[in-house]
């Protein structure tokens, strides 16, 4: 009886903490949602009142009715999916080599990856632009992919190599005794055991490429080639901005990112890796 009671209290405490944190985290977001249902809001309203007085769908209708909106959406989706797939593949390969293999030049290459983490990419934009021009990658959606992949690799390689290190080495060694080469160990051991880590990389990479704005704006000129963040930024005016419109568009743009998140956070289930370890 007392044990059950204690359990209930602990549960209650846990929910209270989570609820409190959730409220603080979500409040600004709710404000965004609320503003997106207001009409012609050129200034932000009172942040303590979350219920719009005259809720309207007109912002959503206007956003979805914007010329080419569906096209921008698909443009972003295509670039994000292809880039994410490449980022996951290439960064996990690199991370595996850094975490598990010995080779000449490893130290130097790892240093170069770390350096890449710390360089502000904003400052690289002009040399990158000249490079894209010389490679004939300007003004093209597929041309975004190598740049998205290349700039994301340092971060994800570093992140994954941290996770790969955590996998017990005994497992590798057991497979090595069975005669498994590096590729088999990568595909059959490290990757399946790293589902949560790979899920994290997918979530972050998709978000990063879906949201990318500065580079896409700099290299894309044709209106038809644009990605969604550019279309959303265009709702902001020089002297005034219809916030309801910007927020509505931003909320629509969040949906795919959340879907990817919900799909891949399912990998974060305790016991998933434990099962594999028993083999």
């Amino acid at each position, binding site marked *: 009886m007392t044990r059950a009671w204690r359990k209930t209290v602990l549960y209650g405490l846990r929910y209270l903490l989570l609820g409190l944190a959730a409220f603080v985290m979500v409040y*600004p977001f709710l404000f965004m949602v609320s503003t997106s249902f207001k009409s012609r809001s050129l200034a*932000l309203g009172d942040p303590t009142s979350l219920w719009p007085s005259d809720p309207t769908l007109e912002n959503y209708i206007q956003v979805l009715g914007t010329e080419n909106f569906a096209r921008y959406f698909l443009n972003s989706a295509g670039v994000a999916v292809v880039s994410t797939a490449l980022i996951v593949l290439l960064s996990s390969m690199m991370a595996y080599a850094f975490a598990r293999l010995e080779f000449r030049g490893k130290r130097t290459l790892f240093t170069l990856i770390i350096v890449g983490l*710390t*360089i502000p990419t904003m400052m690289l934009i002009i040399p990158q632009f000249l490079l894209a021009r010389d490679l004939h990658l300007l003004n093209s959606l597929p041309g975004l992919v190598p740049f998205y992949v*290349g700039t994301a*690799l340092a971060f994800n390689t570093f992140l994954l190599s941290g996770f790969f290190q955590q996998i017990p080495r005994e497992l590798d060694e057991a497979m090595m005794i069975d005669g498994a080469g590096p590729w088999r160990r990568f595909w059959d051991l490290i990757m399946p055991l790293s589902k949560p880590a790979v899920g*994290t990389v997918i979530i972050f990479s998709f*978000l990063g490429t879906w949201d990318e704005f500065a580079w896409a704006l700099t290299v894309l000129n044709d209106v038809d080639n644009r990605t969604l963040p550019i279309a*959303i930024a265009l709702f902001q005016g020089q002297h005034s901005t219809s916030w309801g419109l*910007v927020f509505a568009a931003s909320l629509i743009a969040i949906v795919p990112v959340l879907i990817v998140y919900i799909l891949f956070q399912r990998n974060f289930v305790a016991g998933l890796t434990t099962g594999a370890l028993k083999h």
Partner: protein
Amino acid sequence: MSTPQSLAAPPRTAGSGSRRSRHHVAAAGRRRDTFAAYTFILPGFAIYALVMLYPAIQTLLLSFRDWNIAPDQPSPWVGLDNYIRAFGDPVFVDSLVNSAAYTAFTVPLQMIVGLSLAVLLDAKLPGRVAFRVLFYLPVVTSWVVVSLLFQYIFSSGDGLANHVVVDMLGLAPENVSWFQERWSGLFAIAVLGVWKGIGWSMLIFLAALTAVPEALKEAAQLDGANALQRFRHVSMPAIRSALSVVFILLFIGGFNVFISVLLMTGGGPGNATQVPLTYMYQQAFKFLDFGYGSAISFTLTLVVLAASALQYSWSRKRMAD
């Protein structure tokens, strides 16, 4: 570019095992490793070298010039002038201090709160997915939108922050003009940084906690360990490397804070809340002084690398103890 070696030290690998039976296998494996390693590294590294390292070298060269963006106009070499100027520039030095303060405030909070939420959400709990989504919402919301929102929340009149600080908690006698002063302005920016970053570190910690074998936790429970003890002795060792990775990434991210500062204060009032990247952006893209902007950018890179190296070697030493 010289990099402190300790940071660059890659993780020790399986080949360094000490037991004799292992040694034999490892030696055989190592020969195959070297060739295989390059096939793992090369495709990714080639793209990385092309779109990151090559432009970075060009930017580095640019920092030794008085660079003119027009291709047909001269860009004379000036040696270390831009770097000497940076170290004598009080605005730049202050901007480094500001970003250090921002990092000191945001990194521990993001780590602690992120880890706490991850631990709470790692267990089987009804509504877990809903909470995981709620805490992740700030991460997916665009920086532009939330920066403007937080500027509004911290507005000096009856903004939400003043409502909480003055009316609800009574911490200040009257409404605070957050963006009027250096530290209160940076505080507001840092609050946004924490708010937006918690879900990010939570996600990585969640992924790391997932790898903790349930059997170990159960065994500890049978031994009579309470929740806190189980966390310290079972979970913590298993996520050490994730902690160190998150710390370094947050640390680098803290020094590279940019959009929120640009949009919330623009580095002002005066240059009070300037951080290295806003100052770099102003010099390069507003004043078209790309040589100086590049020098600022590489000085920041050096500072961050040196600091991360110190931290990294310190944490390795601690782990070894």
